[in-house]
């Protein structure tokens, strides 16, 4: 794992450590640095402003309460926080009472259909993972599209099949093969 020194990651890890010791000012800084990133993540999955606000609120209270759980050795701080938000958003979406329209999915489709220079550049610029961007580009269009839809908008297999107007089995195969190739590509670097 080529872990390049990332000033943001170091800053966030330090702030989380302070939060674990009850420093509320550090928590405010942590919020300032990360809330727009995490709100975007939640909003794309739950697709409703008020739900995303509620998810974000719960997640930051959780992050505060569990800051002591953050083990720097295991994952990057932003990855840790983002996973909390993603998991909460996905659990939220799987509640029986949450019904959403399909229109918003289009955003992701458009983004990823046309070679997607915008998001790719953002990934690279974020210093997050140039390898990931490169590996995503190597996927077949349908694989990339189904993975992007599932990942950004929390679509299940059957929702993917509905949306892409393809049989369930076909979509499942795209997702599975896409993930396998992604893993192979990322470990081959």
């Amino acid at each position: 794992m080529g872990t390049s020194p990332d000033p943001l990651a170091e800053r966030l890890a330090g702030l989380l450590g302070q939060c674990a010791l009850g420093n509320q000012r550090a928590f405010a800084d942590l919020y300032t640095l990360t809330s727009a990133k995490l709100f975007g993540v939640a909003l794309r999955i739950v697709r409703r402003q008020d739900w995303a606000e509620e998810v974000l609120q719960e997640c930051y209270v959780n992050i505060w309460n569990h800051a002591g759980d953050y083990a720097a050795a295991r994952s990057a701080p932003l990855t840790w926080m983002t996973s909390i938000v993603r998991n909460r958003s996905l659990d939220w979406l799987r509640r029986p009472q949450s019904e959403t329209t399909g229109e918003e999915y289009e955003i992701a489709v458009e983004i990823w259909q046309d070679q997607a220079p915008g998001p790719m550049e953002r990934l690279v610029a974020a210093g997050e993972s140039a390898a990931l961007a490169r590996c995503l580009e190597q996927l077949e269009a349908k694989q990339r599209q189904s993975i992007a839809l599932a990942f950004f908008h929390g679509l299940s297999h059957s929702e993917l099949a509905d949306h892409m107007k393809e049989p369930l089995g076909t979509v499942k195969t795209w997702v599975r093969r896409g993930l396998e190739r992604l893993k192979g590509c990322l470990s081959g670097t």
Partner: protein
Amino acid sequence: MTRYANPELRDKLAAEYVLGTLAGRARARFQSLMRYDPALRRTVADWEARLVPFAHAGKEIAPPGHVWRAISRRVGRAQRRAGWWESLAFWRTFAVTSAAFVVALGVAIGMMPRPEPPISTVAVMSDGSGKPAMVVAWPPMKAMRDPHIRVKIVQDHPTMAPSTSWELWLLPGGKAAPVSLGQVSLDELQVMKLPKAVTARMQGAWGVALSVEPAGGSPTGAPTGPIIFKGECVKIL
């Protein structure tokens, strides 16, 4: 169980869990498997490291100001310095749902080793979201030659930040300040021997709490870091 021993299947499920396509009952089942399977949690963490940075390819969107105000209110309230253990509202906030309590009670009863006096007191400690995180249980102190308590961690991903430690506190009756029961490790099942001075106070205790402290434990003898788990004592015998 054997179904989940297949490494390829484990990897595939972990990938789909992180991607989000593992839904419904499959997702819930996977989450409960993770709780008892550290290797599976590592597989998930590996997939998170691969995929989650992808989440930031999307646009940043600033949340409205009222979100932060609500968060800081909630955090500030839980953080109230003076005598938080006396505050009823504090405990009410962390009330465990009765269903979760029954589950954890089952866990506690399952923790009883045969040749020991039966567990008489159980405290189910929940995290900030009200989920059971840790169960503490003990037999009557007088019935034991070497008084101890049993601790079981039931949280999904118990992890401790570097240079911090977890300290367990007994909340004795009345307005008395918390009494340290010692430091807790991340082991799922633990037995903590109690010093004589503490055993006398176990009887009237009404709650237990876990705080995050600097490595080596609280420097002051009272909780200094945030309380991450807490629960009320319930006499079951």
